[in-house]
């Protein structure tokens, strides 16, 4: 791996930024599916939480 030749700091910041973006995207995906997708089954299962959390519902 060529990454091993880079300095530790460079490796950390480069892989770090990718990780930060990845985890944020994953989090947004979870919020979207659990809180906003209107598919009937999901909506019914999450109905009370969506109301209590202030998400637009129905």
């Amino acid at each position, binding site marked *: 791996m060529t990454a091993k030749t880079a300095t530790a700091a460079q490796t950390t910041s480069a892989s770090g930024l990718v990780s930060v973006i990845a*985890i*944020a995207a994953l989090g947004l995906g979870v919020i979207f599916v659990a809180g906003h997708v209107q598919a009937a089954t999901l909506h019914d299962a999450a109905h009370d*939480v969506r109301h209590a959390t202030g998400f*637009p519902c*129905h």
Partner: protein
Amino acid sequence: MFVTPPASPATEPVFTRLLTSALFAGAAAGLIIALLQLFFVQPVLLHAELYEGGELVHFGSDSNVTATPELPGFDAVRDGLSIVFTMLIYSGYAMVLVALMSLAETRGAAINARTGLIWGVAGFVAVHLAPGFTLAPEVPGVAAADVYERQVWWFATVLTAAIAMWLIAFSRNWAGWGAAVVLLLAPHVIGAPEPEVFTGPVPTEIGALFASRALGIGLAAWVMLGAFAGFFWSRESEAAGQTQTA
């Protein structure tokens, strides 16, 4: 098959540390919030559903409906699903929060449980107070505009408020703070999708209590989420730092 885990989190990549912190914070805060919601918000919601379904009607000349009707009790499936989804949603929020915290940390911000409290309050403003200022948390059975249009407005408002919170925290000049004010005001000046007529059968007393409770629990949720996220992230970073210097 049991394999001994790595001796130190330092051997874990950044992604794993972010995910670990977020899941711990999200699960812990989510579980507490789910219980608070079941106790304080769910009865108000169930009360509203009696009006939504037409079992209770409060308008008319003989409007002497009891304000304290018999409500359905704990429902294992329905409330169990609520607990699972609350933990999921707050884990999702925690992932975004920890990602932003680690980004701020690389720019010199101190991240720990104590500063996490402020992150939590900012998060509450971004995802609860800002959208709720115009689209109040709605109880079942109220009149509302098309759900898709409200979702678009909701996401736009949360995004602009989150950027505004970041600018207020990390800007060092008036241009940044001015932009934050514009971003905070714009969605409300433009206005949210509103229903064309009011048809909601739910008493205003129930709707008002629901909105207050939802916002109050939202603040408690985010203060906890921020503190937990700050705590777990700083613990993971500390462990990683110690091994690097060792």
